[in-house]
């Protein structure tokens, strides 16, 4: 399978990465090189093979459902580019 420039632009939009025409053109070539490389997986017969879910056979760890941490709002927003009274500040999303 190969991708065209329109697909690349759509994928960039899904990935939330702005691309201009020149970058989209370049990425089309790069992505097709990678997709061409992975194409060889088509040779492998995977009939009745289960997909890998965990390399080490362990069951999911669980713990008591209780509050063990918290009260650190100031720490959480400490690295934010913009914050106010322990809220993250973003451009207006609701008109």
């Amino acid at each position, binding site marked *: *399978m190969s*991708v065209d420039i329109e*697909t*690349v632009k759509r*994928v*960039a*939009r*899904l*990935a*939330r*990465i*702005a*691309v201009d025409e020149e970058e989209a053109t*370049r*990425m089309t070539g*790069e*992505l097709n*090189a*990678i*997709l061409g*490389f*992975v*194409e*060889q*997986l088509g*040779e*492998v017969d*995977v009939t009745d*093979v*289960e*997909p*890998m*879910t*965990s*390399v*080490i056979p*362990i069951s*999911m*760890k669980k*713990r008591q459902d209780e509050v063990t941490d918290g009260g*650190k709002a100031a*720490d*959480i*927003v*400490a*690295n*934010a*580019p*913009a914050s106010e009274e322990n809220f*993250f500040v*973003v*451009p*207006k*999303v609701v008109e």
Partner: protein
Amino acid sequence: MTDSSLTRLTIAQAREKLASREISALELTEAYLSAIEAANEKLNAYVAVTPDKARAMAKACDARIAAGEARALEGIPLGIKDLFATEDVHTQAASHILDGFRPRYESTVTANLWADGAVMLGKLNMDEFAMGSSNETSYYGPVVNPWRAEGDDKPLVPGGSSGGSAAAVAAWLAAGATATDTGGSIRQPAAFTATVGIKPTYGRCSRWGIVAFASSLDQAGPIARDVRDAAILLRSMASVDPKDTTSVDRPVPDYEAAIGQSVKGLRIGIPKEYRVEGMSGEIEALWQKGIEWMREAGAEIVDISLPHTRYALPAYYIVAPAEASSNLARYDGVRYGLRVPGRDIVDMYEKTRAAGFGREVKRRVMIGTYVLSAGYYDAYYLKAQKVRTLIKRDFEEAFAAGVDAILTPATPSAAFGIAEQDMDADPVKMYLNDIFTVTVNMAGLPGIAVPAGLDGRGLPLGLQLIGRPFDEETLFRTAHVIEQAAGRFEPRRWW
């Protein structure tokens, strides 16, 4: 002792001299800080140096030693890959998008090291988000390998993604370093710099507080000057951690005790599929030498087959980017790092990510997004995860047939020149660097790279040993045999 003789001590040697009070932790730390100051402009191994913190930690170590309370790594100065969260210290995964990020918490692995008395020298350069095999994708520029070809001044790459870790250890700018390995990022740079690097079994080191690239493949491990030092470091880095649900509940053994144990009677598998087309004669000869060394030490050599080897790299280039595209979704200019203003919130996201991610990172996020997008999931991701099951099964069958460890080359070539591989025209060419290492990540197994010789131009080459899950001890034991036979290799100092 002079500064340069202090920095040339291995961790085991320094430990002894610190315990006998022949040297102090502060003296040792000062020697490393001076070495970094003199060399870093040329090698670019560190992206942030923390001298005040290092001195304060070293002084506390000296007090501990004086009180007879020395811990396993008391006073040992280490470099930390920029991927590990270190409280209030530069943690940016060598990416522009994490500009200014200083975590309010410490990763489990580094917390373990400090709890054992290690001293932090600073944060080490790496490929951006650990995506690369040459350390050229770093926002902070490439790391220069302390090794050069004989009679040639051309700067070489140290490998990647843990290029800063490998270069710092090889150039005596840290006694040891933390690193991470998703497809070969510990073992390939170790091979390029004549250092020892081990990627332990998936689940052995906690991933908590390590910037995530591909969560089902990422593992932390050390890069060190020799096999013993790697064993010492891994014992401190590894732990059982309730904060990482993939951390495995098994006690951490004393890896150092495995060193020097006989390999007599061990069965070493030689997989025929690693004899790849176009492999250089030098790599082939090195591999043969390794086989001879193991045989002379009393191991039994057996030919084995791992038939799905060639599919590991293409499967990796679906699984790793898919996981990366999910993990890197968090970099949106809201909670940390870079923000580029936009006309609305989506525009802000898109501009921030366009400016903050480098080309290789964007490429992988795009591939990952594509293979996970509606209509393609089964053809790519599901198929790759099925192939992964087959890759793991190959190893399981070899181990079930009585093989104790598998010996292979670590890399298909020695270090290459900076800007030599034209990544932009063909990214796949760079990806082929990981051809011998990536299978191990896909199967979750432990793998160690150990220096084994020099090529015709005087550049280091390494061998890799692959073990059963949680049998790192056999890797230290067998790698030590190779180290004893091959000898040690050090770069000629030019920096």
